[in-house]
């Protein structure tokens, strides 16, 4: 294992995107992608030990605001979900709920090696080993707590990705929802459900692909009738 460069990095390719639903994006796609890349709001949700590296990245020495990145409190306002440190099974439930509450386009960065392959907790019965089984992960920043420079490097890589716009893993969650749901049910049991109606959202925004519905979603439907918003009714 003397030469690290020889180890190939696993990347996955996804289907080309379909028609956009947002007329504004159609008009000046380039500007929109630039804006999305230049203004990323980081969700202020510290899942594990790696989060201690974020404050130095935000404050005066490294100052993420230069890149247009601000910490935001609620998932509704955030774009990036930083999953830092080991992901215990209990925390994974909250991460999935928060991820589904974030408006897309949304990006997940797995900081620390525990999200990559379980890290030093690889033997533990209580931690989820590979984050990308449960959530589409854009980017991993390895290191058992990477230094702020590494975090910012990761952010710049993500900004480049967004700017180029060829990979958009957040669509993968809608298009292959059944696969992700299967893994989640495998871990949390069959009655696992979140209040967000992901399938409804997929159909509403035209992001549903062939693999969105599957046998796992059928299991989900057994336990949960979809939470449809209260309709305004006069009668």
């Amino acid at each position: 294992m003397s030469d690290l460069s020889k180890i190939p990095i696993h990347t996955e390719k996804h289907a080309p995107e379909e028609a956009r639903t947002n007329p504004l994006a159609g008009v000046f796609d380039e500007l929109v992608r630039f804006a999305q890349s230049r203004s990323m709001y980081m969700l202020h949700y510290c899942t594990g030990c790696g989060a201690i590296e974020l404050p130095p990245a935000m404050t005066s020495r490294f100052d993420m605001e230069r890149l247009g990145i601000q910490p935001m409190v609620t998932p509704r306002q955030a774009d990036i979900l930083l999953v830092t440190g080991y992901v215990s099974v209990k925390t994974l439930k909250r991460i999935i709920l928060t991820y589904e509450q974030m408006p897309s386009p949304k990006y997940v960065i797995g900081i620390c090696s525990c999200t990559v392959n379980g890290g030093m907790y690889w033997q533990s019965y209580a931690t989820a080993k590979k984050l990308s089984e449960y959530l589409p992960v854009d980017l991993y920043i390895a290191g058992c707590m990477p230094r702020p420079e590494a975090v910012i490097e990761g952010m710049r890589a993500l900004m480049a990705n967004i700017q180029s716009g060829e990979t958009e893993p957040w669509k993968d969650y809608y298009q292959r929802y059944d696969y992700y749901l299967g893994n989640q049910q495998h871990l949390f049991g069959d009655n696992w459900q979140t209040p967000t109606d992901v399938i409804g959202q997929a159909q509403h925004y035209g992001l549903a692909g062939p693999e969105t519905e599957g046998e796992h979603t059928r299991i989900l439907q057994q336990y949960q009738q979809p939470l449809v918003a209260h309709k305004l009714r006069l009668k």
Partner: protein
Amino acid sequence: MSLLDALLLTALGTLIATLATVRTRWVGYVASLGLGLQLLVLFLLAPLGYGAPAVTSGLAWDLFGQPLVLRYDAMSWYFALITLGAGLVSSVYATGAWSDHYRAAGRSPGWLQFALALNVFTMLLLLASGDFLSLFIAWELVSWASFLLMALAAGPALKWSLRYITYATAGAMSMLAALGIVFHLTGSLNYADFMAAVDQWSVGLITLLTVLFGAGFAVKMGILPFHLWQAGAYAETPGPGMAFLGAISSRMGLYGMMLVWVQLIGLIRLIEVHIPLTFLSLRDVLMWIAAFTIILPTYTALKQNDARRLLAWHGIGQGGYMLMGILSASALGSAGGILHIFNYATNQAVLLLAVFAVVYRTGTADLNKLGGLFTRMPLTFVAMLVGIIGLAGIPPMNGFVSKWMVYRSLLSEGMPLLFVASVIGTLGTILSVYKLIHNTFLGQLRLEHEPVQEAPWSMVIPMMVLALIIFLTGFMPGIVLDWVAAVQAAVGLPVLPHTLGGVADAHGGLDMIMLVLVLFAGFGVSALLFYATGRSEPVHQLDNYAGGHFLSADVRYHYSDHFYAGLMHRIGHWYRGSFLWFESVVASLASFLAQWSATFYRLMQPALPMLAMAVIVLWMVS
């Protein structure tokens, strides 16, 4: 047989017809039809609202040498219009679905309609009073009629209506004393002699008369020292009855004040009367009472947990505005005060009807047991929204115009502390009305309120009509300002030059038409900006951020109890209920005297009176 007689006779006819059909099912339709007819006759009297001379009634008769004259002038026409409007709306609201609900609850809607018709008739009579005697007679009839309306819903209403009638009788007695003094001074009870003789009277006498008459009217109006009965008594009145009472019944007190203080005694005299040891004149004292009447009830309303109580307390608060406006004696201020009577009547009526629509569907008016009804009762929500915008006095609605006038006049008259006091009142109103609409319509919809439906059409239509009136008179206040100008002329106040849009004034006028148009233009542009950028998807109320917690329908996470906790930390200890304490002191004194006099009769030995008599005789002989 002048038009005024026609009006009074139709009112009497409605009363009798309602009484005849009180047991049947269509008593509501009879009452509403009658009230509609009265409104038509009132429209025939419409020239009064535009400066025509007063109309006197044919059936005058004199009793024991005192002539009783009935006449309508612009002021009475204005008040009659609001009374009949409120009466018609409440009676239409009370027919149809609401009456079946009320009958199912074991009470008779027939008597409610009769009480409403009786109230309207007695109020029209009061407005027609041409001299002090007919004023007092009609005043007693009005207070007893509203007593009947309050006591209809047995149970807690009995306690509150008894308290009301004790206050009302005390007020009436102070008026009777004033009547006696006037009779003693002028030898007759008609207005002309009073106005002629008022010049020679001493300052002390004018203050005495103002206080005595004022006390009687203040009880009905709920001005500060006498306001304790109003919130509870109004809250216990059944549905539309409360809407009627809240909208117009307490304004009869204001009619009296305008009649006696402004028309007969004249505000100039009130200004000349200086209170010794202070630099205040009598008018300033009254304005400060009005100012405190604005603040204290509004901040009591803030703490109420029952929607009806909250709105009843606001009734008292807004009364302070009207009094403040009228007492400012400037053209702008008095026009603001008089306009506020109309505006507030519509706001209070629509809010109360909305609250009772919610009670009709959910069975409770307790703000801590409601929530999230917007998706289930949208039209009632629209009515309440228009009502609270009007009540808070925010631009597109009519409440803003009258409050703007009052502020503008306070500002140009140079009364800083009163200006600040009334603004504190407005802010308190905004806070408490938001609590009302938030706890009822916004937030989490409870499980048991899922199947709730919109209120039936017989209740929604009156609300929508009122909401439309509120918006129209807000958009074009000129309509009502014509009537207000006529009232000012009739009462002897300086008349306000006005345009259809509002007040044209070199140093900062108001043109509602342009402002509302700009406002809606702004809304249009932002709506365009909003709907042009991507489609949004409505989500269920459980799909909410709660710090990673999984929300579930059975857990109540709706924030409604102790709504303004921060504010209450600061001003919570200022609520000491000093008026309640004062009232209990008076009550305990009276019961002590009563106890003593009762024992006087039981224990007294026969010998003592004989001894007393002997002493008197000896004293006589010596």
